[in-house]
């Protein structure tokens, strides 16, 4: 697999994907098609299996059945490192940063994806001047919003083809969330395929071009953000 394998923003195809923690299956045969260049919001209540499905897409978890096809490449037993080198950037739940490294060192790590570390730093500091001020500070001592900025800076600077975001808004003030989603919009405008996992429907649908609702480990509905917005409330309420 070469880094240049994914030239265009790819489509993601999931076929019959099942995933389990030990003996307990939490994703039951998901078929999902995520169009190339779309901002796809995967919605659903707590425990629906959204984050697990994102783990499967980013190769952090091996599916017990089914296949994941990114950009037409049916990868056999991919590793997160191999996917990252192909241009798949995943920001996991919580903060996708290394707390015991400085801000600058965090950015240097991300330059492993084929972009010079000076370029990564330049792009990150240009967009987030605050990070430049704190470049010698341990990332774990930044505020929640700043930590998420640092994580997003990686997506901006690493020039990914696919961006997978898990609960970006978790534990952040609404203003910070709005700012971060504004950035996601800018990244998507470059033609990057973005998959968002969010509990907060309105936040995600602001930037989404397509959406799906997941309930009890299965896809409940897919469609436009407007349709899903209307369905979401009913789906969430019926979930219990």
């Amino acid at each position: 697999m070469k880094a240049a394998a994914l030239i265009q923003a790819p489509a993601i195809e999931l076929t019959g994907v099942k995933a389990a923690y030990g003996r307990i299956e939490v994703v039951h045969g998901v078929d999902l098609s995520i169009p190339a260049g779309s901002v796809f919001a995967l919605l659903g209540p707590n425990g629906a299996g959204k984050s697990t499905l994102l783990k499967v897409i980013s190769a952090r978890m091996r599916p017990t059945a089914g296949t994941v096809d990114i950009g037409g490449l049916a990868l056999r037993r991919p590793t997160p490192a191999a996917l990252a080198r192909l241009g798949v950037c995943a920001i996991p739940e919580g903060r996708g940063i290394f707390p015991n490294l400085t801000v600058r060192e965090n950015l240097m790590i991300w330059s492993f994806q084929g972009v010079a570390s000076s370029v990564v730093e330049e792009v990150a500091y240009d967009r987030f001047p605050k990070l430049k001020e704190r470049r010698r500070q341990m990332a774990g001592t930044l505020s929640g919003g700043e930590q998420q900025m640092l994580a997003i800076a990686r997506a901006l600077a690493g020039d990914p083809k696919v961006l997978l975001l898990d609960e970006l808004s978790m534990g952040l003030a609404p203003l910070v969330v709005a700012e971060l989603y504004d950035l996601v919009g800018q990244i998507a405008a470059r033609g990057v395929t973005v998959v968002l996992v969010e509990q907060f429907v309105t936040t995600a649908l602001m930037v989404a071009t397509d959406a799906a609702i997941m309930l009890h480990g299965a896809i409940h509905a897919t469609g436009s953000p407007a349709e899903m917005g209307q369905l979401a409330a009913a789906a969430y309420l019926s979930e219990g």
Partner: protein
Amino acid sequence: MTTFLTFTIIGIVSGSIYAITATGLVVTYTTTGVFNFAHGAVAMFAAFSYWQMTQSWMWPTWLALFLVLFVEAPLLALFVEESYMKRIYGATVVRSLMVSLGLLLILVGVAQTIWQPESRTLPEFFANSNVTIGDVTITYHQIICVIVAIVMAAGLRIYLRQFRSGIAMRAVVDDPDLLAMSGVSPRRVARSGWVLGFFLAALAGVLIGPELQLQGLDINLLTLLVVNGYAAAIVGRLKNLPFTFAGGMLLGLIEAYCIGYLPGHIPAALVSQIGLLTPVIFLFIALMLIPSARLRAVGRLAVARPPRVPTLNQSIRGGVAFVLAAWVVAMLLGGTLLANLTQGLALGIVGLSLVLLTGYAGQVSLCQLTFMGIGAFTMSKVADGGASWWGLIIGVVVCGIVGAVISLPALRLQGLYLALATLAFAQAAFYGFFSNTTFIAEGGAIPVGRLSVPGISLTGDKAYMVFCAVVLALAGIGVLAVRRSTWGRRLVALNDSPAAFATLGMSPTVSKMIVFAASASLAGIGGMLYAGQPLALSALNVQLFVGLELVLFVTIFGIRTVSGAVLGGLAMVLLPYASSQLPWWGIGLAGILAGVGIALMANVPDGILGIPWLTEHVRIPGIAGPSRRTEELADVQ
């Protein structure tokens, strides 16, 4: 002035070697999250290999250096990583400590098999070449040590902070999954960490070997020299290389000045003990002085699946069956094997003290044999070299008090740091007390008798073994009763989450002190019974390596089960007995068995008794596996 300069130079040279040792420890820890207790053993192995090549086979120095530093050390590192260490990344502190302790014992065992005791010395590099400053002569070897230490410390700091691959080596401990998502293979990075760590250990071994002209190359001495490295590494809080370097230098200088400026009338034997005591006292003080917020160890403290606890009925039936089995065995056996088994049962009681302290409460201790020695010593003093029930009671109280005092550092230390503090205590007690002729008579043996039970004579070895089995069974039933009690649940809660424990209105301080005291008392009882078999306790019985072996065996079988303690105690005596009965390959077989045991431990968090197949198919009371319900809950998490 000349004396000051001489000892300053000696201190700087020793300090440089400690700094290299500690730097290797810190590099391995920061890049793999595993504190490698076997670091000194790797240094020892390298020094002996280097001796073998240069002194025995007479190979050129440059070739031996190349082979030891760039072939043997990296290959050993890769083998160890592949066989053991890759399975314990992110494991509990106890498990990762035990696997590296196991590696230490294997390396020591292999070295003892290859290099039989004899006088060995390594020549210095550029022997007989030196420079003179004033009245002080400095050898080229000493200068090389200092230069290598400075270059290593500075070079590694720059590499780990300025180079992308160096930063990745630090990032892998923070979050290996995230590192993988950044396009870097965490395994490859961890392997580099092990290779670098083993290289530094080998370098320290090759440099320190020639410094031991007086003692010669000694397996135990070289392996334990790493304690000096621990002390320096703690000054750097296991992550800061400049502070680690400074810690090494400071320790080297303190040690040299202690020896240099001691009053002249102190006997030479005591001077050498002060030299051995300085690093452990330094380590203890360093652990006490560093703010606890800065002592955050990598790794989890607790695992999710607690073993099922047998009911009172089950434990009584198990205890009775155990005593009956011991009675049958005692009737059938005699001689050395009977004596060994009796001591194994006594060690089982010391193992139970570990179940209570480490298995239930999650407090790591490497000094249980010290309490065993204190118990036997108190009994000896109270009963005047014999044994009495008053001796037992006073011994239990004394051990409890010492245990409570030792728990004071435990109030602020956890996991790895607690292990290091208890290790320092064990070493200090060994050098300062058990090997000290001021306290223990010449020859190092503490005379202890056997307790007398009205109507029953325990002078016979068979009766004494059954008596030990009864005490062990009662202790096991007692420990299980504690586990089922409210206080036992508190201990487990303390292990799971000290913070949540405190927020529920319970005092971690009091609970820790009580469990340390109770565990020390239990170990003390074990010591009294242990010494009662041969009617004496030798200082060698309580030395650090033996204590580490016991912790290791109990962990291999399952440190959270009473059966694990019993089997661990028995394995301590049966394995050496079996290997002594077999031909020369017996030692090799014992080594292989130990290696397999440690590999099992690396794979099965709860030891052999926690192997899923065993817990599902074996229903002997006391051998209790994880309850199915909690297993499912753990899966959901």
